[in-house]
């Protein structure tokens, strides 16, 4: 297969790995994991389905990254709204401001970790001997 879909597959498995660690600590995962990882675990799925999944996983993965960035920026704006509400004396209590700041922080770290893993995957790929 070509370099781009190989990159997407490796990046997909890296993101899937982070996702699985997170889902081990939370009760549910609501976001679809890139199809590759799930398909490889599911022995019922025929090989053709795997190939079809690899061609659609490119589009799915772009959406995944876009959604991640959107959600992180939503958390950040919610945090800054809460903090400015607290400072201007509106009925926001201190603990709400602290919690939303910390959640925004964790979300941002999540995005940074995803970026790091993608970068590592890319560099790993580039080091491969042709």
């Amino acid at each position, binding site marked *: 297969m070509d370099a781009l879909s190989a990159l997407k597959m490796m990046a997909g498995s890296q993101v899937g790995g*982070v*996702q699985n660690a997170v889902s081990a600590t939370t009760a549910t*995962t609501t976001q679809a994991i890139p199809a590759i990882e799930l398909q490889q675990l599911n022995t019922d799925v025929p090989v053709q389905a795997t190939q079809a999944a690899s061609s659609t996983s490119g589009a799915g993965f772009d959406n995944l990254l876009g959604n991640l960035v959107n959600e992180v920026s939503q958390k950040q704006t919610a945090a800054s709204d809460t903090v400015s509400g607290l400072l201007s004396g509106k009925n926001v209590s201190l603990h709400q401001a602290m919690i939303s700041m910390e959640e925004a922080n964790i979300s941002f770290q999540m995005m940074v970790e995803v970026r790091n893993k993608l970068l590592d995957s890319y560099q790993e790929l580039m080091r491969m001997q042709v």
Partner: protein
Amino acid sequence: MINALFSDSSYVTAKKMLDVSVLRQEAIASNLANVETPNYKRLDVASSFESQLQSAISSGNSASVATMQPELAVDTSAVSGRADGNTVQLESEMLRLNENTVENAAETELINQSMAKIRMAVTGKS
């Protein structure tokens, strides 16, 4: 993806209970401020809220827990032990004050623990 990180039901419930305990602190402050005011009726978190919260938790739907709004209401079960109609009793109100402070500390600790878990899962370090 981010919302899934924070949708653990015990975390959502702890956040809501923290809101409730801060609200209750305000009710207790108002009650103790008015302990000598004639005909003052004591306030507390609305008792209907407690039962709604129980059913929301047992249904397992953390989204419905997150949208609940606790409110203060006059405590109809309080009786007046005094001639002036004031229903605040100093000793029990002080006990509630202490109990509420401990509850607040407990919920804050739960929230901190949940956040530490999430942070560990995301970054791999504590």
